[in-house]
């Protein structure tokens, strides 16, 4: 089976699992909502300042959500020992990682797209006129988040205190994504809107570097 085919099978399996149990997406969305509400206490959210601070808070909320949500990516396999079965399949081991990565990317993006209008309303930010640019930034940032997050989820699943460990590993590595996505979002939301090519290129580099790294180390992660 080719890598692409195997990856899409794993992706389909992940999506099916999630849409049958529907635990992850709802919980994560509520979590992000809570964070957004709690952040509103740190400054006056309806002021013009929110254009300056809002994007940072939003991305921070996404990063926290990612570091909690991605836990289950490999943990779910451990409880029923299904990872062993996946490993036995005659497919490239990287396709397991890639399939999970793609699924996590879609889950995170979905949560972000659901929460974006809520954020816009609560923080008085106009997003409709700049929606395509905003989505582009979301996609670019989320690829980096899903790529590193999925690999670290496999790492943390093999350790003790894994719930605490994943954010510990993930958040410092994602600091560049936080900075770049936040700055790009600020640029898009400011008046006049401006899509920063520097930060988009930076995000593309981050995504490319860590996707390649994941591809190179991926097979080692699934060893028994």
């Amino acid at each position, binding site marked *: 089976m080719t890598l692409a085919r195997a990856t899409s099978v794993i992706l389909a399996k992940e999506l099916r699992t999630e849409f049958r149990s529907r635990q992850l997406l709802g919980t994560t969305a509520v979590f992000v909502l809570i964070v957004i509400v709690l952040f509103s206490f740190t400054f006056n959210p309806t002021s013009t300042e929110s254009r300056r601070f809002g994007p940072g808070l939003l991305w921070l909320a996404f990063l926290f959500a990612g570091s909690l949500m991605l836990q289950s990516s490999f943990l779910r396999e451990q409880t029923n020992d299904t990872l062993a079965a996946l490993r036995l399949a005659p497919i490239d081991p990287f396709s397991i990682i890639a399939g999970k990565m793609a699924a996590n990317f879609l889950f995170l993006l979905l949560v972000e797209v659901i929460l974006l209008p809520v954020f816009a309303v609560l923080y008085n930010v106009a997003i409709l006129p700049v929606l395509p640019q905003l989505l582009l930034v979301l996609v670019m940032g989320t690829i980096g988040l899903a790529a590193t997050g999925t690999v670290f989820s496999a790492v943390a699943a093999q350790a003790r205190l894994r719930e605490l460990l994943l954010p510990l590993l993930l958040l410092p590595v994602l600091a560049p994504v936080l*900075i770049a996505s936040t700055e790009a979002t600020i640029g898009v939301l400011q008046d006049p809107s401006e899509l920063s090519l520097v930060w988009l290129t930076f995000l593309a580099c981050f995504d490319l570097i*860590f996707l390649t790294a994941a591809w190179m180390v991926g097979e080692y992660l699934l060893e028994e």
Partner: protein
Amino acid sequence: MATQVQTLPTTRPAISVPSVLLMFFLLAAASYGALIWAPTENTMGIVQRIFYFHVASAWSGFISFFIVFFGSVAYLRTRAPKWDWLSVASAEVGVAFFTVVLVTGPIWAKPVWGIWWTWDARLTSSFLLWVLFVSYLVLRTLVEEPERRALVSAVFGIFAALDIPLVYFSIWWFRTQHPQPVIGDGGKLDARMGWVLLLCWAATLGVMVVLIRLRYRLEALRSEVDALRMESARSTR
């Protein structure tokens, strides 16, 4: 069943006496150079002298983290435990050096800038780098089985090392858009200052090599003890 007595692999001394003597000589010379020989800086005064060790520690810390990357890649390729030992040894030494950087920085900053800390590009990225490798060390404490630990920490070590340039670029671009305190005066550097800085770097490199070798040896002995313990547990069962 006759238990076979396993002959221990001979552990040669981790460091030769001359290399330790050389390290102490370099340290003494560097201290003399930094504290006495180098001229006192005009505007910052005596506190500027801490800079020699501050900068030298940062450079040696970077090299240690590069060794972590190298050791992690080599471990994944060869699966020889020695590369894992090298990685953990260098990571600890690198974190120690960056701790020195993060402590000496504020000592210098308080009298010169008037504040202990500022979120300037260089400070922020050094801090983040330190946090990255502290996470690496925390990860190591949380995985019990040696081979598993070596494997996952090699993966994380590679990711953390790849992140270093990204951290630097992102924070640099981020901070240069914001007001920042002026570092340095751009004035002409006394030649002696440059030499002392190089000497200090040589000294910290010497400390780095000696510490990494000691720590490497400790890790090797530890894994040997673990292996023996497993063996005795198996034979008494």
